[in-house]
């Protein structure tokens, strides 16, 4: 196994692991947030606009963690700096 194969294996496996593990936490968190917001909406329908706005902002905060993981895995697959480095070295030889 040369360097390129090793880097390819590590990048692909890590990309999958990143998005898989990284989406567990935000999924649980968003579920909890929406469930709590729904029950408070049912209890206080009058303050629905405030609850909805806070819910959206909070959801975006939580979701951005999953988005970070997605961006990292996309970088690993499509714009991998180590892979580009090895390619450049192989081209230079």
């Amino acid at each position: 196994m040369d360097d390129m194969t090793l880097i390819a294996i590590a990048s692909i496996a890590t990309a999958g692991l990143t998005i898989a593990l990284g989406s567990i936490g935000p999924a649980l968190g968003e579920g909890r947030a929406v469930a709590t917001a729904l029950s408070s909406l049912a209890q206080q329908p009058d303050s629905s606009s405030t609850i909805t706005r806070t819910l959206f902002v909070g959801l975006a905060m939580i979701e951005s963690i999953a988005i970070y993981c997605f961006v990292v895995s996309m970088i690993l697959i499509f714009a991998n700096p180590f892979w580009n480095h090895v390619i450049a070295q192989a081209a230079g030889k």
Partner: protein
Amino acid sequence: MHLSSDETIFWRHGFCKLNGTIVFTWGLMLALTLGSKLVTRRLSTDLKRSRWQNLIEIVVTGIETQIADVGLDHPEKYIGFLGTLFLFVALASLCTVIPGYDPPTGSLSTTAALALCVFVAVPLYGVEEQGFGGYLRSYAQPTVIMLPFNIISELSRTLALAVRLFGNMMSGAMILAILLTITPFIFPIAMSALGLLTGMVQAYIFSILAAVYIAAATRGSGTKRAPAQSTAG
């Protein structure tokens, strides 16, 4: 793989090149400015008004109410900045229904520029409202120990703003491209409808977060009305 609109080159002359991001941003700027110019050319104050004036009034008053809800006292002072952010991001994602169009917000350079605008605008508004010393003192709230954390949160939330918008827009385009190769006919339509919804939500989030940051910066340390919101994304 087509990652962002940075890679579509329209025109190149030596070092300078016009990529898709720049061209589509210019197009959006042109559409927004020309559109509002044309609509506001003939404004009427009586009951009979054009439908376009109604549209603009709904948009402007809607944004003003949202800004006021966040806790900023004079929304008309901030609507120039926050409203432009919202309208640009919203139109950028709304225009994805046009074939051949890539949202410029799907490029990290655009979102980083927007986030830097927020990064610069927050201290400006804060200094204007509280004075230079008052604004600087707000970094040492509630105690001096929090000073490094406040500075780090200032930087990290700028990064978070940029990467959040970029990730959402890029992931929409990316998922569409992947789905087109797997199930080419019906399913991508549903996903692009979802992408439109995500785009509007992200535009809302971006401008609301900017408003929350500005509200946190302009709110004096002595006149705290709402409980302080954690603003590190």
